[in-house]
């Protein structure tokens, strides 16, 4: 019981990362990867789900894919900012999308990462942002 509580407490201390991507493989493997680094990982397959999780779990950092089926990343970001939420967001863009980048910058994003991305690099960015958070 105590051990469970301890682990819960540890979990509460753990930085929270939300990965928003409509690719199940990305969600699965990114989650597996960051978990091993003691990061609590949430995943969302779309904008609506992502906004819910952000409201509930208050993640420290959101990795937000730009191009998604249901609602695109920029719209998600816009909705988030409109609700007065200033959570750190790193946009994951596909091929260079100038207009998207400009729009996202206007809405205040922490950074951009471009697909395809090697996990080592992603780790550096995420860890840097999470560290600067605490």
């Amino acid at each position, binding site marked *: 019981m105590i051990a469970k509580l301890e682990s819960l407490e540890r979990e509460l201390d753990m930085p929270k990362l939300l990965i928003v991507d409509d*690719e199940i*493989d*990305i969600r699965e*493997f*990114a989650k*597996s*990867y960051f978990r*091993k680094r003691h990061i609590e990982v949430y995943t969302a397959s779309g904008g609506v789900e992502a906004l819910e999780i952000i409201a509930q779990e208050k993640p420290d950092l959101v990795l937000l894919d730009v*191009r998604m089926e249901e609602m695109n990343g920029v719209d998600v970001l816009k909705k988030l900012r409109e609700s007065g939420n200033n959570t750190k967001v790193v946009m994951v863009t*596909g*091929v*260079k999308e*100038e207009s998207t980048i400009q729009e996202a910058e206007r809405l205040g994003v922490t950074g951009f990462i*471009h*697909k*395809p*991305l*090697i*996990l*080592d690099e*992603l780790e550096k960015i995420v860890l840097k942002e999470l560290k600067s958070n605490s």
Partner: protein
Amino acid sequence: MINLFSVAGVILFACCIVLILFAWSARRSSIISTWILFNAGVALWGLAAFIIGSTSNVVISSIWWRIAHLGIIFIPVFLVHNIVLICDFKKREILLKLIYGQAIFFLFTLFTPFFLGPLKSFKGFFYLTPKILYFPFFFIWISLVAFSLVILFQKTQTSQGLKGNQVRYLFWALLLGFTGGITNFFPVFNINVYPFGNLFISLYCLTVTYAIFKYRLLDISLLITRTTIFFIVYAFVLGIPFFMAFGLRGKLVELFGYEWWLVPLATSTVLATTGPFIYVYFQNRAEDRLLQEQRRYQATLRQASAGMGKIKDLKRLVTLIVHIMTRTVRVEYSMVFLNDIHAKKFRLGAYRSRQVRMKFRSDIDHETALVRVLQETQSPIVYDEIKQRTQDFGDLKLARLEAELKAIDAALVIPSFIDEKLVAILVMGAKVSGKIYSSDDLSVFSILANQSALAIENAQFYDEMKSTHVQLLKAEKMATIGTLADGLSHQINNRLHAMGFIAGDALDTLKLGHNLPMSLEVKEMILDLEHALNRIESNVQQGGEIVQGLLKYTRKDDGSIQDVALDKLIEAALEMTQFKIKPGEMSINHEYPSDLPKIRGNFTQLQEVFFNLIDNAYDAMMQRKAELKEANYTPTIKIIASGSINGHLNVLVEDNGMGIQEQDKEKIFTPFFTTKLSSKKGTGLGLYVIQRLIEENHSGTVVYESKYQQGTKVHLTLPAA
């Protein structure tokens, strides 16, 4: 009293007055002035002959004989003056002084008793008798006329074209006229021949008048034939009834009694009615014979005109036109120029020449005198005529036109009009036969030219439609490909992205297990797996780069226009190539002046252009190196640039690479066409993108020339700042 002498006199007077009026209406020149004076002299003689012939008063006759000699004395003087001007006779100053001197001398003696004697009765009127001075006067008179005719005859032998034609007219007219004129002297020297010759002088007037009307373009042989036929036919038409009425009157009265006059009347009616038909019949027969050659090619040209509308290929059409012109008419050369509205020029569409070499092969500017005159007059231009008029009137505009025609060696220029629009210009050299272009020729050529205009416009329209169609298809294809490439690359990118994550996570998992106890074999296996996963990651990255590169071309960038220095541009382009091209692999020579103007354009796009050009050149040179294995081969790119006067920069990028094979030359600007062996090396979009960036975004041009196994040159023109 009316007699032949007085009637001929009045006819002559009238004819000469008409001639003078014609000459008067022309613009003044020394040739025209002396010509008018000469005719005034002849007119005065005609008037005097009329009065002398019709009066029975010896005093009036005596006065008019002296007035007549005012004219007679000056007739050869003005004639010689006129002829030496026409023939451009050298040393004419002294000659003219002498001639005018003798005329003035005889003018004075005219009123002394040493020139004319008392009048004698002759065939019902009074004729002059000569005194001592009349004999030298007559001798000089005849000599001057003979002199004029001789130098004019010499001129007919050396002149060609229009001038030659004119001179020939004049010669024959004067010969006729003076042959007649001489008869007026017969009674003076007691030769008992009636001075009928004044009629011949009128004939001379008619000849020259006709020549003035159609002077430029009628064959002299034709004119003489026509006149002769006319005289013979009408001698019969008028002569037969006349002969019946006077010569056969007795016989007719015997046969028909009081109604005898009905016979000559009926005959004259019949002959007068049939006369014109007979005349036309003989004229046609004679002309068919004389103009056989001309008729033949005119028929061919008419047929060709009719067939032309069917040809849709412009190049073939214009080639056919010049072919027809040179072959059927036998001219030295012919050319067709087609209007290029955008370039404000008439471009040489086709030419054909009997000689191998063509002197002139450039285009005709819209601003030339030639084009302006064609637009104004809408009728053919004959070089000889322009030359003649230039000499006669010294008009500056004509002189310019003459110079332009001379520069292209044109004998005849025919405009090709559709309504008011000058579609094409046909230019022809002289006829091989040396004959002049007749007015019949001009009308047939004009028909051909206007048929050509229609056919040319048709063909141009067809061409335009075809190329629009091709462009539409191409655009459609590109749009489809663009959309497809866009969607495809996103999908591929996402797959690569996911693969990267999967490989990365698997790698991570393996690395975390390093500290677990395991056997050596397992450890080795894990290292192998890690290596494999690393390779997957690096392949993912490479794949991502290819997708990025591909998409660069289908996307638009900001398109901002600024002043760009060429060396900065090339520096930036070389920077882009540094991953591929190792230092020392090739040399780059820059050859451009330090004050080279900057380019007005978009830096990123131009960088892309030069990157692609250098990249292509490099690949071509590496291919040559690999395939030809030449011993002393140094791959070299030359970049040569210069400013030009019309606000453009000319840039030449030259390599000594493999060059382009003939069969590929048409396709190199086609999207997705590549000759580069490995797909990693080329997307097939490079040149297509260059062309689009330069032509559409910079209103420049890109042209290349290439020799297989020698190298390629790409010429760019770009707007200067």
